[in-house]
């Protein structure tokens, strides 16, 4: 790969997916793109770059997918799912008691481990959620990844990362060498292809957004832009969960850290004492509106 090829790939990935590769990621590019070149019968990265320059969309899509697909596993980092179970959902059960619905968005849903982990969490608390409408939307840049997520099929290696054995027994079915998550859990998750670089306001407003381990690949201006648009898509008393290596601090005040809950953020204008979180105060208001 010539320095020129590398610069071309960097710019191509930046423009098409927002991926911001530093100048020393030659190994990463070669390890992920050489298999694509070989599969397409090309001699190497240079020839792959020629195909990109010639405008091959098939190659372009494969390159974007290969470079933006990241490792993920069930209940990754544990802590965000503890936050979800112990802080987010208890508060939502109160704050949304009147409308009995919660909208959750996994903005980097990848191959499904994160949205399905949330779905399993919710299933475990189904008694408290009886009669509620719970929506989990999983989006990703890559169609290939979305297809894998929809299928809910995982290798033996994948189901052993982060997933307690009792959960495997309870929520998965063995099919040959693979494990498939139960249809009931699969049905809790909707899928859509979304590029975070582009407008996503059409998805509506969410109570909870998980946007983990994707912003680290973007440059600072892109991060700030995405945070601003995520804030518009978050209800005023909603939650944002970021990856362990990510933060809004020093970038923007549209979200602020949630005290004592690492990796969890709330909209900048959120005031814990506001009436909206207190179900008792909120309920009469809604009742009055309904009576109008």
């Amino acid at each position, binding site marked *: 790969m010539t320095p020129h090829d590398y610069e071309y790939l960097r710019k191509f990935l930046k423009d098409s997916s927002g991926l911001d590769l530093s100048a020393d990621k030659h190994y990463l590019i070669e390890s992920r793109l050489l298999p694509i070149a070989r599969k397409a019968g090309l001699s190497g990265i240079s020839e792959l770059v020629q195909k990109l320059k010639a405008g091959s969309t098939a190659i372009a899509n494969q390159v974007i997918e290969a470079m933006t697909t990241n490792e993920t*596993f069930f209940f990754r*980092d*544990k802590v965000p799912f503890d936050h979800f179970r112990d802080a987010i959902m208890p508060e939502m059960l109160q704050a949304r008691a009147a409308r009995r619905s919660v909208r959750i968005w996994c903005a980097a849903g990848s191959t499904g481990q994160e949205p399905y982990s949330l779905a399993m969490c919710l299933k475990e608390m189904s008694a408290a959620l009886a009669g509620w409408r719970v929506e989990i939307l999983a989006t990703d840049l890559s169609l290939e990844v979305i297809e894998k997520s929809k299928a809910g099929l995982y290798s*033996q*290696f994948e189901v*052993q*990362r*982060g997933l*307690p*054995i*009792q959960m*495997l*027994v309870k929520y998965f*079915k*063995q099919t040959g060498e693979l494990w498939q998550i139960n249809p009931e859990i699969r049905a809790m998750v909707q899928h859509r292809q979304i590029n975070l670089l582009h407008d996503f306001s059409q998805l509506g407003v969410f109570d909870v957004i998980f946007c983990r381990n994707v912003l680290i690949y973007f440059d600072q201006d892109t991060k700030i832009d995405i945070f601003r648009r995520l804030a518009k898509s978050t209800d005023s008393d909603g939650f944002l969960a970021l990856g*362990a*290596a990510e933060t809004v601090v020093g970038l923007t005040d549209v979200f602020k850290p949630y005290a004592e809950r690492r990796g969890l953020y709330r909209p900048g204008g959120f005031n814990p004492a506001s009436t909206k979180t207190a179900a008792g105060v909120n309920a009469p208001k809604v009742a009055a509106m309904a009576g109008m």
Partner: protein
Amino acid sequence: MKTCLVVDDSSVTRKIARRILEEMNFQIVEAEDGEQALEACQRELPEAILLDWNMPVMDGLEFLGHLRRMPGGDRPKVVFCTTENGIDHIGRALRAGANEYIMKPFDKDIVADKFQEIGLYQPAEPV
């Protein structure tokens, strides 16, 4: 330092498991079959047991039954580590009192995740 008893009839597997678990700060005791493992437990109960299923003399499931009936035998956390990867085997292991279950082949990440599940390992905070 916590102790982990590694029970497997393959010396290669014991060696790999030892290397992974020592890196996770466990002191290792080895046994080649269920009977040797039981003797080790009678001498001193470990905090954790990494347990193969199919072994000569006494298999893992039989050992687990004996262990759980021993005085204090409910305390060690038992993680099966076996090529038996059928849901029926996993179910039998859990009913017999296993805490976690690893399907071979395994690597460092899987062992670390499973030991985190049973509360005996805390990975370093991500930076």
